[in-house]
């Protein structure tokens, strides 16, 4: 692997562009010279309207897509494909439904050929940590959506990755479960100190969870703004609802929301009523 003199710990997104031909031969500029640094242990949330390239960016970080130009480096090494040091949590449907909860969580260590006793300890620890004690032997298809996402988080962390990439991990949950799970994500981040990049559609979620918020804009996909956020730290002391109802939080939420709405309006005037996806 390449090691660079400018190597820093954490993720470096270096002028990454992604262009591909849509059906009909139109070139889509999903990302245009996006640069970003994420230090080790940081919790970054990414927000933006549909078509802003945030999922494309995450897929490039995961190594599922190669950028048209530019590169992504993790701890100084260029990302060339998927790897165990970059774990991924998907919105839904990524659990192995033919396995029990324990077997899902054990998947990474098992593939790596770890010892049975080690795997058992890791699985027990993580099932406990995500609040699923006693559910280890259940088939995952019998669990509710929220519990399935707990399994997905445990499975990812069981592999002890350097970075956890989350693609709208709470997007398919109902509002109440979603709030509860935000607390869990925050707790896991504090306990494990992992670098987390989380994509979401929810402004509230992005503000609440992130230490830093990246707002992206479409056409071409680019970073529109960055915000340092104090809320993730506060939520560890005050209750989540208190933080979300506080004046600074509400003010910030409205600011970001109006920004996103103006982007949506621009898209609408460009395209008429056409779906921008």
């Amino acid at each position, binding site marked *: 692997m390449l090691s660079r003199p400018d190597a820093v710990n954490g993720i470096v997104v270096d002028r990454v562009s992604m262009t591909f031909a849509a059906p009909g031969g139109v070139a889509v500029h999903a990302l245009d010279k996006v640069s970003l640094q994420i230090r080790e242990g940081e919790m970054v949330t990414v927000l933006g309207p549909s078509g802003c390239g945030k999922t494309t960016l995450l897929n490039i970080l995961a190594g599922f897509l190669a950028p048209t130009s530019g590169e992504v480096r993790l701890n100084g090494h260029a990302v060339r*494909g*998927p790897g165990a040091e970059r774990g*991924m949590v*998907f919105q839904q449907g990524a659990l192995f439904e*033919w396995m029990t909860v324990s077997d899902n969580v054990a998947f990474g260590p098992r*593939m790596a050929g770890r010892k049975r006793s080690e795997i058992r300890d890791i699985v027990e620890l993580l099932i406990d940590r995500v609040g699923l004690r006693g559910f280890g032997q259940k088939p995952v298809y019998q669990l509710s959506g929220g519990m399935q996402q707990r399994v997905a988080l445990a499975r990812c962390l069981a*592999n002890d990755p350097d970075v956890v990439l989350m693609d709208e991990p709470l997007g398919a949950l109902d509002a109440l479960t979603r709030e509860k799970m935000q607390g869990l994500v925050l707790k896991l981040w504090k306990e494990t100190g992992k670098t987390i990049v989380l994509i979401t559609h929810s402004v509230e979620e992005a503000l609440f969870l992130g230490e830093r918020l990246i707002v992206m804009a479409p056409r071409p996909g680019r970073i529109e703004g960055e915000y340092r956020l104090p809320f993730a730290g506060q939520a560890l002391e005050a209750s989540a609802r208190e933080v979300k109802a506080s004046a600074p939080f509400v003010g910030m939420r409205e600011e970001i929301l109006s920004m996103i709405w103006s982007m949506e309006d621009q898209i609408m005037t460009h395209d008429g009523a056409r779906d921008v996806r």
Partner: protein
Amino acid sequence: MTAPAMSAEDNPSRLRIWLGLADDSLARQKTVRFGDASAVNPGRIYSICILAALMALWIVSSAFGWVKPFYWPTIGGVADRVVRLATEGYRNVALWEHIGISVYRVLSGVFYGAVLGVPLGFAMGLSSVVRGLFDPIVEFMRPVPPLALIPLIILWFGIDETAKIFLLFLASLFIMTIAARAGVSSVSIAKVHAAYSLGASRLQIMRHVILPNALPEIFTGLRTAMGVCWGTVVAAELVAADRGLGSMIMIAKNFLQTDTVVIGIIIIGLIGYGIELLMRWLEKNLIPWKGRD
């Protein structure tokens, strides 16, 4: 508001519900029933009635001699023949052997079809080269009824056991190939991505993700192949065989033994139904996650 008292009429016995004389408590409170398949009870009482009526008709017509035994046997004649077939066999071959050889041919055919078809389907789902090579052949052979191949197979293999099993192998091969390929294609990309991100190698993804994910489709293929092969084996035995249920009814026809023909047909129907029930049972127990994605 107080809950209405449950009278005996409100609360029908389990037997009445099983028979379909009454709906269960949820279905009874649905106002939209026409078009809601879950509100249509199985109506077992009517199944019992129609079977009883057919039996009664057969008994009465046998007693009064309404139909010549040449066209349709009497019930007494059939009963006698069943006993003789079971004890003496037919044409020096025991009845269980006729049944056994037909079942054996089907199982062998499906087995070989699966052993070759599943890996082929996997390769077609995973490699462009294999897909390109075999797609025209599979797509061409799929609509050809296996029975149309009988003349060719007789020319190649004669009429011995190999010929029949080869025919059934062909009948199940394409079904299994297509099923396995569909199973591979149905794996969600999120699962594959998740496995790569957890550090799995290609081989591990094949073994631990793609294969289990394809099992439901493969099983559906097995069920279809069993059904098709059962139909094909009987037809193949009608054409050329000295043993097997198909040959039994064909020989019986030549001797105008309508009773044996009818018994053969009933056994063929019962075994076909039994295979289907067995496969459904296996599917429920071996692949409990089917449809729970």
